[in-house]
């Protein structure tokens, strides 16, 4: 019996239990619903919950635990010479057994007998059924597969019996407890409260999941490559080593970090002045009409997916800068060779900067408009022009908030992926020419993890070490931003 069907049956029982609970509540009240402590619906919901929740917990626990028990008892059926092998080979053998177990039910009687006589034909026969077996089967595997199938079946039947029994029992006993004085609503609301708490704890679970998953894989990586070689290495050359190759390559973080910071710096160079001036204009000069037109239009820039910016950089900005540099070079020296590569720090930086404009402008806009009117009026009343008011009064007052906003924007620039994947290039180099390609942490995470993966090689695991570095940097920037804002905020009231 499949899990879906089981859940379906449990839901059906719960639905019936709900109706019965309601009916029973009405019956014990004798048609006078004011005699009941709670409204009849709550009695129904209470009975339904009693019929559904305990078996659901049992099913979840069972599904989590039973595979381990089944696996270990199937491994017990392996012959001794297999048990003596390395764990990796054992799990390989178990994988084959599991595949065979999946294929067995598809065979007919005769085919099964033929295979039992000559296991070497198994691969061919299974292939006709659409089950690909990796290597030639050994006789014991058939037996183990049969055991596996048998145990799985038993486990499922037992689970179904236990779950349905528990469900019926829960419904029965909760129905018996329905009485006018019974506080069904309070009990149901307690369950709902727990469900709400559970939902809000998902946020914490996500963080724990991020940190734990990346930390374990990264630690795994650091057992293969020493941490100091990763954090202080200046050469990135992961070398997708083929089987048997001994050298594992070099995993130096520094060139990637340099590229990330450089591109982020160019992006901020574009985004900060443009975004800040746009925010100032919209907060201080623009008529309401222009503001209501320009602000949403600028925010459209924030709504465009980053892959679109990446494409824009790849097909428009990159070639444009390349051709422009060729023309400039030609005018200056007569040699029409481009000095800006199509994929370069400056291409990625400019496009990322455009993407960041709305973040800077809308964050700063909020902060500038939050500066109290009185400061503005005071300065204007003393004869300062508007721009002087802005430069000498409003910006200093809004500075902590703006710095916080800029730090948050910087963290976004560092974590940005698609633009740099398409526009920055893949060469991990340390250089200071913005017209040459450089690469970033995020690009390398994508490069290392697309394609065939095996979770034992440093080439794959390094992505998690990069990921946790990225996570820590952005987290630190955000926390620092919050700290600055809190510490230096001017209290006006």
């Amino acid at each position, binding site marked *: 019996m499949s899990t879906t069907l089981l859940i379906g049956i449990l839901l059906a029982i719960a639905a019936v239990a709900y109706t019965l609970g309601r009916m029973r509540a009405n019956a014990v009240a004798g048609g006078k619903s004011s005699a009941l402590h709670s409204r009849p619906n709550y009695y129904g919901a209470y009975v339904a919950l009693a019929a559904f929740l305990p078996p659901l917990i049992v099913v979840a626990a069972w599904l989590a635990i039973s595979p381990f028990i089944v696996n270990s008892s199937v491994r017990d059926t392996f012959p001794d010479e297999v048990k003596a092998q390395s764990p990796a080979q054992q799990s390989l053998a178990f994988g084959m057994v599991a595949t065979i177990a999946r294929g067995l039910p598809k065979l007919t009687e005769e085919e099964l007998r033929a295979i039992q006589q000559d296991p070497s034909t198994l691969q061919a026969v299974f292939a006709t059924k659409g089950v690909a077996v990796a290597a030639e089967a050994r006789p014991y595997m058939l037996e183990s597969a049969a055991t596996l199938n048998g145990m799985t079946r038993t486990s499922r039947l037992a689970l179904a019996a236990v779950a349905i029994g528990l469900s019926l029992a829960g419904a029965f006993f909760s129905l018996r407890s329905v009485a006018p004085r019974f506080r069904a609503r309070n009990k149901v609301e307690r369950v709902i409260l727990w469900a709400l708490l559970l939902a809000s704890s998902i946020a914490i679970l996500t963080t724990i999941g991020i940190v734990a998953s990346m930390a374990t894989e990264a630690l795994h990586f650091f057992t293969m490559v020493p941490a100091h070689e990763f954090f202080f290495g200046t050469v990135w050359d992961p070398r997708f080593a083929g089987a048997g190759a001994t050298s594992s390559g070099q995993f130096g973080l520094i060139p990637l970090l340099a590229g990330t910071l450089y591109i982020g710096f160019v992006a901020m160079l574009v985004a900060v002045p443009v975004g800040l001036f746009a925010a100032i204009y919209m907060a201080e000069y623009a008529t309401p009409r222009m503001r209501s037109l320009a602000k949403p239009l600028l925010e459209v820039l924030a709504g465009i997916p980053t892959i679109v910016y990446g494409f824009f950089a790849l097909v428009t900005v990159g070639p444009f800068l390349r051709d422009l540099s060729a023309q400039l070079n030609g005018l200056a020296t007569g040699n029409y060779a481009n000095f800006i590569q199509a994929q370069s720090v400056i291409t990625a930086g400019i496009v990322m900067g*455009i993407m960041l404009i709305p973040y800077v402008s809308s964050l700063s806009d909020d902060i500038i408009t939050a500066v109290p009117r009185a400061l503005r009026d005071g300065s204007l009343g003393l004869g300062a022009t508007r721009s002087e008011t802005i430069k000498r009064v409003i910006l200093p007052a809004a500075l902590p908030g703006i710095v916080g906003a800029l730090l948050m924007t910087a963290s976004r620039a*560092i974590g940005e992926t698609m633009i740099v994947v*398409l526009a920055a290039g893949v060469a991990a180099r340390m250089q200071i020419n913005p017209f040459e390609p450089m690469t970033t942490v995020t690009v390398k995470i994508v490069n290392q*993890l697309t394609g065939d993966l095996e979770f034992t090689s440093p080439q794959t695991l390094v992505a998690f070490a990069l*990921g946790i570095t990225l996570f820590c940097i952005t987290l630190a920037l955000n926390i620092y931003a919050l700290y600055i804002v809190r510490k230096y905020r001017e209290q006006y009231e």
Partner: protein
Amino acid sequence: MTDIVSQASGKVVSAAPPRRDIGIRRRYAAERRFRFYGLAAIAFGLVFLFILLWTVVSKGYTAFLQTEITLPITFSEQLIDPGNKRESDPKVLQTANYPLLVRDALAEKLGIASSDRPALRQVSGLFSDSARVTLRDMVVSDPSIIGKTVPVTVLASANIDSAFKGQFDLTVDEGSRKVSDQQLGWVNTLAEEGVLSKGFNTGLFVNGNSSRPEAAGLGVALVGSLYLMGIVLVLSLPIGVAASIYLEEFAPKNRLTDLIEVNINNLAAVPSIVYGLLGLAVFINFAGLPRSAPLVGGLVLTLMTLPTIIIATRAALRAVPPSIRSAALGLGASRMQTIFHHVLPLAMPGILTGTIIGLAHALGETAPLLLIGMVAFVANVPATPLDPSTALPVQIYMWANEAERAFVERTSGAIIVLLAFLIIMNLGAILLRRRFERRW
């Protein structure tokens, strides 16, 4: 006396000191410059927005049209199944040389002798290799068609498609062009006869991926994105609303809830690619869910969208005035009943607006999907959320990496489709806000 008077009057008349220079002119100039910088900044942003959209639209709108060749094709038995073995060996029908049928039909139409081999090779370049699949499917589904002459529509090849849409620079020397003058002549002849024509490109919305630009479509990606959005909506809306209700209405002020709050704000700022790593490590590596499946993508995007939805929902709940709560509580409702019967319905427009914006963000997200393997070459539409699939932005990424010119057109077309979805969703959010927003 007169002296003094004259002195005094002389002072007043002739030596009137110029007004003290307080640099008003300079300051006003600075003011004008400052103002201009502001305007220039806004203009810079808007100009780039315009260039971006214009680039995409001008490169992409032609992707919605596709050049097709419609002509009667003779399913000659000699070519498909010369040995008449299709009863015994069905593979014959699978492996027959179908493009030859199209070539011969075209050659006949153009009046080219079957001995003129160079010309015939050029004719083969007119139509797409996907004609093989088109004809094969026709024959396999109905073998009685063999021997008959039936009008069939096949796709023109990508180069001919581009040439017919006028995207090739014909002044370039013939040798360095992908379309020869002879082929261009034929294209004009065929177009005049109505054999070759442009039609609406349904393939773009139906087909799976293909290495041939003319046959590549967004079908798989659209279905994949639909699954993703469905999963994100079903999971993140209830969980997000439940979490917000707890934090806003029930949470006691203690360390734990403080921690949750700080957490949610930080999660909103975590780079999306980190969520991809999380999905890879937890859902695929640890829980053993299949790679490339929309289910995993949906789970990852749900975790990514949750902070957005929680923040929006809490704002919406906070906007419902306390008098509503007091009134309900005063009439004897429990706190739960107050919230679920009164506060939540009133906050619903705000919650839905936030959800739509979160969904729109998730729809355009690419990086985490790359890491969980949705960047796969998938030709068949996934039947369930557990089958391999791609998504709209990932398809754009894959096409953007293709070198051929025709793929640039496809990519831009796909971006137009993606942007259209985003515009619809955001307009929906705006309308929802306008229609139901209440000021208390």
